[in-house]
């Protein structure tokens, strides 16, 4: 008999465009300290069965970054490992560990110290295929420009509606103390910002941010001892479409459609539009929020832009999307981006989201994409109710 899995503790440093006063170790230590206290003041030296950390070497400037993780999160001479992926796939890994029945309490860590990197685009570029794509040269975000053109071509969503996503999310971020990039903008501001990869403009592309997150997951039995406000992982899914950009759909986010299918099936959700109250999803490029909303089946195809324009995805709307400010408003936090979507979903479900709290949030969806040039994403369905 297997147990359900809950998130019983969250810790976050908040996000800033730069954190020059602390090292990445000190950043992680802060997030860990907060998470363990939130999880009923557990002692990671004794009370945690496994630790999952999420990082990629070139973001950190260290080959085998795994080496530099254990001490500051309480995992020295303990069962820690790295998943080279977004924190949400780390969450899925922790979920699987607990489901095996061999682990009761598992910690997930993800962070961004992206301000330590002085060649951000050089590193994104180094992820392109060295044979077919990289030799073309240029700024790698042209891949997103290609995708946006096709997305707008295939659907009835408009350029202006994409800009509205940015306006909404950066405004929402003003209500979120964690967010680094809150702003009052207009659709015109976005449309008139410099063209970068047309139709993508400068303000369609999320700015980056530093921050650390640690989460504590527990089995049903352990969760009840640690907290009176568990948030249950009802379903989780992750998926990778072909690694060849040339073979992708471009207009559709297949990775999210398939990850959502997996997560919804696990959660027993047949009608996401009805069963999901709100969503925290990847909006790292403006159009991505619309593309992902449709892939998540939270609206019909061609409808995401219209809903956005009509205000339905605002905090007070029928389907609040990125009430936290999303990646546009909080900042792109590399591998912590997905775990932060989860964290904001947990805050909403606990009723602790403060000024951006959504009324009566029962079930939420968190989703992430790993960014250019990947076709990998993850989806989590979270709920206040265990079943």
């Amino acid at each position, binding site marked *: 008999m297997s147990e359900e899995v809950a998130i019983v503790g969250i810790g976050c440093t908040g996000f800033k465009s730069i954190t020059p006063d*602390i090292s990445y170790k000190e950043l992680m230590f802060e997030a860990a300290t907060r998470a363990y206290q939130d999880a009923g003041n557990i002692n990671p030296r004794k009370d945690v069965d496994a630790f999952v950390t999420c990082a990629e070497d070139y973001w950190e400037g260290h080959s085998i970054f795994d080496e530099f993780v254990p001490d500051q999160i309480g995992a020295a001479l303990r069962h820690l490992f790295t998943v080279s992926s977004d924190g949400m796939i780390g969450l899925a890994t922790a979920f699987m560990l607990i489901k095996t029945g061999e682990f009761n309490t598992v910690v997930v860590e993800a962070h961004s110290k992206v301000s330590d990197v002085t060649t951000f685009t050089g590193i994104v*570029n180094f992820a392109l295929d060295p044979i*077919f794509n990289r030799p073309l040269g240029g*700024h790698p975000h042209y891949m997103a420009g290609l995708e946006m053109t*096709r997305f707008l071509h295939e659907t009835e969503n408009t350029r202006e509606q994409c800009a509205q996503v940015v306006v909404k999310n950066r405004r929402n971020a003003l209500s979120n103390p964690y967010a680094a990039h809150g702003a009052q903008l207009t659709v015109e501001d976005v449309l008139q910002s410099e063209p970068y990869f*047309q139709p*993508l403009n400068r303000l369609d592309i999320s700015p980056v941010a530093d921050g650390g997150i640690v989460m504590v997951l527990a089995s049903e039995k352990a969760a009840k001892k640690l907290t009176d406000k568990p948030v249950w992982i009802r379903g989780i899914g992750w998926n990778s479409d072909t690694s060849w950009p*040339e073979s992708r759909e471009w207009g559709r986010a297949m990775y999210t459609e398939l990850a959502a299918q997996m997560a919804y099936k696990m959660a027993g959700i047949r009608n996401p539009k009805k069963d999901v109250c709100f969503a925290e999803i990847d909006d790292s490029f403006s159009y991505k929020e619309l593309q992902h909303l449709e892939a998540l089946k939270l609206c019909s195809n061609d409808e995401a832009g219209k809903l956005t324009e009509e205000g339905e995805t605002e905090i007070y709307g029928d389907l609040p999307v990125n009430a936290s400010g999303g990646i546009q408003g909080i900042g792109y936090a590399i591998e912590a981006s997905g775990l932060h979507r989860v964290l904001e979903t947990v805050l909403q479900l606990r009723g602790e989201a403060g000024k951006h709290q959504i009324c009566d949030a029962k079930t939420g969806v968190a989703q992430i994409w790993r960014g250019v040039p990947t076709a990998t994403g993850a989806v989590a369905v979270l709920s206040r109710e265990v079943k």
Partner: protein
Amino acid sequence: MTLEKINDPREIRQWPGHMETDYIYTLGVAGERFFQEIKKNGKIMGAKCKRCGIVYVPPRMYCERCFEKLGEWVNVGNKGTVFTYTVAHIDLNGAKLKEPTIYAMIKIDGADGGLVHKLGEIEPEKVRIGMRVEAVFKPKDKREGSINDIRYFKRVK
């Protein structure tokens, strides 16, 4: 939380480093054949999966869907259709380009995929999805077995 924090901005310091060295990539079993054909013959070749019927461009040594080993090579010609495009105005370092670069995903005729490449001999405003284009190769003696042996794709007149 650490008990001590930095309060004096003069105490803030960064330590420099890098992860830069040279890399030499082999093009692989499929890539070697593909680029030799481009280099020597100016031909774009695809690899066909007999089981799925898919013609892969860029070619693979295996079908990603069914894992058949691919042995059948098909000359797919040098023409295709713009499937999507973008006009880039900044370079890798974020500096404004003097002339914008037009990138496009070109569906190659007779193939299920295509190539991500550049468009040339056209103004950005005139590019359309569905536009017919063909590969413009470098002269044979300048070709070295790279995707840049195709200079760009241009509109079919």
